[in-house]
């Protein structure tokens, strides 16, 4: 017998209230984006822009190189995902399938390092990047973060579920490790790999401290830090700021709405220990 609890009315009310509270700031953002600067300074404010205008949106493109920033973000995300996947699959393969000597020790080190915030290694990272003469490049944005311990650990968890017999049979047939990785392990762990990729993209979008430290010129930044710069210079034009925010947040939101199930499943998996 299954207990079917019919949701009560207050459950509906709660869901609607919580949903509205989450959405309200975004609504205000969009509506501010459609105002003129004058309209944003009305006291009391009028929540609905009348008349709505795209002035603020247009202004964004004259103040920051929006498309350059967007392109940089896409490049950095793609590069970081590719790099992280290569490093994480190779490392996880070595740890979970070959079981190199000392893999237990390495795993303990990895688990400890997951706890260590990457932000506190900014000075050494910066020293390395600048000694490689890579400051002010897109490569600088992603190089330190592709050696992602958390990704290695997640990938290790996914690879561990792969039946040993398959790998051993392939070894008997004389396949190289690289071949086994590409033809057996990667296809089986496909959804795990997608999980790591999505989580990596999400974390690249959140980066702020590292980009502003390593890249000083605006046209080498990603969207997040680029927007932060806009704040410093033009604090009062909230319509422009909000337009920029809407434009910058939009691509990821659209991607999320398309891949919603994958995103949620990926995040749910990241919590499994």
């Amino acid at each position, binding site marked *: 017998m299954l*207990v079917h*609890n019919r*949701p009560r009315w207050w459950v*509906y009310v*709660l*869901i609607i209230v*919580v949903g509205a509270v*989450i959405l309200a*700031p*975004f609504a*205000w*953002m969009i509506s501010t984006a459609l105002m003129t600067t004058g309209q944003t*300074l*009305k*006291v009391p*404010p009028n929540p609905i822009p009348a008349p709505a205008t795209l002035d603020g949106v247009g202004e964004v493109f004259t103040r920051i190189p929006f498309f350059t920033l967007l392109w940089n973000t896409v490049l950095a995300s793609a590069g970081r995902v590719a790099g992280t996947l290569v*490093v994480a699959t190779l*490392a996880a*393969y*070595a740890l979970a399938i070959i079981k190199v000597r000392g893999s237990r020790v*390495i795993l303990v080190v990895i688990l400890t*390092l997951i*706890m*260590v*915030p990457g*932000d*506190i*290694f*900014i*000075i*050494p990272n910066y*020293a*390395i990047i600048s000694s490689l003469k890579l400051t002010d490049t897109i490569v600088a944005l992603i190089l330190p973060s592709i050696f992602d311990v958390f990704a290695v650990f997640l990938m290790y968890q996914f690879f561990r579920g792969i039946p040993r017999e398959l790998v051993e049979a392939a070894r008997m047939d004389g396949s190289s490790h*690289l071949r086994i990785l590409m033809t057996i392990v990667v296809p089986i762990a496909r959804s795990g790999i997608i999980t790591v990729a999505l989580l990596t993209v*999400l974390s690249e*979008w959140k980066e*702020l*401290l590292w980009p502003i*430290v390593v890249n000083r010129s605006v046209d080498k930044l990603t969207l997040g*830090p680029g*927007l*932060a710069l806009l704040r*410093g210079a033009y604090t009062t034009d*909230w319509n422009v*700021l*909000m337009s*920029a*925010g809407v434009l910058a*947040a939009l691509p*990821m*939101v659209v*991607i*999320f709405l398309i891949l*919603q199930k994958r995103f*949620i499943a990926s995040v*749910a998996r*990241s*919590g*499994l*220990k």
Partner: protein
Amino acid sequence: MFRFYGFGYNVWLSLNDAGAFGPPKFAGLDNYARLFADDQLGVALANTFKFALFIVPGVVIVALLCAVLMQQKVRGSSAFRAIVFLPAVALPTAAILLFGWIFQTQYGILNATIRGLGGSPVSWFGSATGVTVVVTVIVVFLSFSVPTIILYAGIQDIPSDVYEAASIDGAGPIRRFFSITLPLLSPSLFFVILTTTISTLKLFDVVYILLPPELPASAKFGLTAVYYYYQLAFLNTGDRGYASAVSMVLFVLILAVSVIMFRLQRRFVHYGEDG
């Protein structure tokens, strides 16, 4: 293959370790001695812990509420799931600026509402309490989504026969939540609390964007440990040796907090009979 792995591992390790031990010019423990006399560091650490004190319970409570609501079989629940996840995919900088606008003292909609209701507007960025409220609201808003999904997944793993048995014994929904859901959810809860605590101790983006270094309030109310570290290392002339020492303090603190939490976990977290 081995070599490639070893190489990657080394590069990555060196990225982490290199230079973490202070200045090129050997100064012994001078930097560490300075730590104890540094008022600003005290302010930064106090702020960081204060924020964590509000943010972590805030995130846990909001995430629990949303996870339980996501569990309900109602029409439109998939839309609700999408809405819950929205803050996690919205660009953080954009969302932080948005809240900067909402909390804006003169023209912000929040103060306008307060004025409309007859109250007097609050200078959100001018007092310690104001800044704490703003930072807490923003960080909770930006970071409750992922914990919600993790808790939701955790709730789904709880076998339904436990609930059935409890219902038959006459336990109501609230009783069921506290005596079944919470204890059986404790591994996920622990994970959420741990990750939220660590990320709060590293708080930087919100205070950096809303309280630029030029503002006097940033030095008092909004200074977090990482923000202070950033200012030391990369503003003005830069004092990287000392900044590294500060980062080591932060590192030790976070490690200590993690260890303490893992200790507590053994006492309170329920892993099931066979776990």
